[in-house]
């Protein structure tokens, strides 16, 4: 029984060009977040006097903003803000949601009923309003916005992990593990969790993309990181003031968000499809 094979090894997805591209996009953005200095020599916060609102050129690939700051540098440095926020959000949703879901699925009875009604309640409130309710309580800031976005994801993780636990629990090998004297906690850790991992990971990848979207929305509305910070949603909000004169300020950060979210969705599909 020691060979609870890693579910991911069961079948790698065939490598497709779309999937490769998605991995490349995420790898590049991750590299931006880790070592932005390698990709741009310019300062994302300090502008160059006299270089305001320059259109894209070799010196400034994405042009400059109203304060003479290099927009490409701001997009590159913004990756750290957005990715870190999305990681925090997914972690909050994953830990709280999976914890609740496993609890509900493993315990059943009234615990299950209470947890699932709580999940129903979270699902009944539109996501944006739920995160705004948490923000009104916590205040503005990047971490606070990330937590607010994470709470919205709790319900989905809870639902999925509960369903997975129930599915695995009904299988023969779990029954056999109980039959051969396995205790509840040991069976849960050894058999139920590893076998639920794939679908939870697929949801995590999907939620990562949604979190980037939600965070950029909160940043745009002004509830995320405060202004000099290069955050993608905030970049778009700042660029809005120069719509008529500088199209590049709003176009580029938005395209980056779209590409990252699309890539996360593609990778999520690959992970989810690997099981069947």
């Amino acid at each position, binding site marked *: 029984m020691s060979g609870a094979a890693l579910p991911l090894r069961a079948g790698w997805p065939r490598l497709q060009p779309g999937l490769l591209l998605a991995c490349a996009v995420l790898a590049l953005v991750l590299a931006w977040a880790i070592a932005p200095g390698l990709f741009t020599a310019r300062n994302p916060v300090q502008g160059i006097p006299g270089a305001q609102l320059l259109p894209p050129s070799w010196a400034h690939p994405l042009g400059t903003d109203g304060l003479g700051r290099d927009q490409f540098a701001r997009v590159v440095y913004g990756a750290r803000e957005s990715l870190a926020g999305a990681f925090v959000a997914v972690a909050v949703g994953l830990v709280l949601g999976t914890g609740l879901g496993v609890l509900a699925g493993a315990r059943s009875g009234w615990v299950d009923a209470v947890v699932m*009604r*709580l999940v*129903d*309640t979270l699902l*009944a*409130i*539109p*996501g*944006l*309003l*739920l995160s*705004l*309710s948490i*923000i*009104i*309580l916590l205040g503005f800031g990047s971490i606070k916005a990330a937590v607010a976005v994470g709470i919205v994801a709790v319900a989905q993780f809870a639902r999925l992990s509960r369903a997975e636990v129930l599915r695995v629990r009904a299988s023969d090998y779990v029954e056999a593990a109980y039959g051969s004297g396995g205790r509840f906690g040991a069976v849960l850790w050894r058999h139920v969790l590893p076998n639920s991992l794939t679908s939870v990971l697929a949801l995590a990848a999907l939620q990562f*993309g949604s979190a980037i*979207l939600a965070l*950029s*929305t909160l940043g*745009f*509305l*002004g*509830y995320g990181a405060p202004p000099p910070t290069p955050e993608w*949603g905030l970049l*778009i909000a700042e*660029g*809005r003031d120069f*719509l*008529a004169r500088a*199209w590049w300020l*709003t*176009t580029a950060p*938005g395209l980056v*968000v*779209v590409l990252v*979210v*699309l890539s996360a*969705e*593609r990778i999520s599909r690959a992970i989810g499809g690997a099981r069947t």
Partner: protein
Amino acid sequence: MGRYLAQRVGQALLVLAATFTLAFLLLQALPGDAVLIKFLELGLTPEQLADIRIAYGADAPLWQQYLHAMGAFLTGNFGYSIRAGVPVTQLLAENLPSTLLLSALAFAAASLLALVLALLATLGGQGWVRALVRSVPSLFIAIPVFWLGIMLIQVFSFQLGWISIISPEPWEELILPVATIAVPISAPLAQVLIRNIDAVLAEPFVTVARAKGASHAWVLRWHVARNALLPVLTMAGVLFGELLGGAVVTEAVFGLNGLGGLTQQAVANQDVAVLQAIVVISAAAFVAINLLVDLLYPVLDPRLARGRRTA
């Protein structure tokens, strides 16, 4: 059926009560007695403040305040907006109609868009056209709503100059916001429609109908439409939430009056009573829509009603 009905209604009421409780606790958890912030700024004496606390019921024990607030909500009294100094009900009455109009138009546009996408993806033209159209919904979901709005302004107002932003006609003002909300809403609709149409087209009864000489249009009208459209109903609740969220963001982008502006002001000013009312009302609408769909579904799809009776 009667037992199912009671169970379902009970569940809906439970979720509503839980939503209200969460919203109430939110108000209580807010630091610094939000009710009094406004009056502190006016420089009142401690005695006057104590009187106001009593007038607002803020001195009563928590459970009394809870029951009182719940009773007030049930009778449509959502308290006072701390910032505006008027009843929340009045603010809602002023802002709800424009948001409802915007959402309704956007929903209609989204349905149309989703239908066109689904028909193109399942029945339209060459294989590569279908494959291309099938990837459109994923793209639509990945676009930030606020950015889409800005891009539409950029292209249609500034580059092409088709839609004036200086002094637009009332209907002209709504074109871009409606498109902005409709695009992301159409994506999940189109995905479900595509999946359903694929499933129905693979059914034996469609093959039989075709073999008997039924035309394309006949199959669509009599076999596909009903079977593929019905499951879309189950998405109504989720779509409503998306629609509302989309409207809030879109109103912020286009500077329109409505629930979106109200929500933004409430968050900026920590005006909890307003946000609480919006949250509870939207949750109530979500619960009501889902309840209605659950009760309506067996009526529209007799197979389900029969299945439940035998089960």
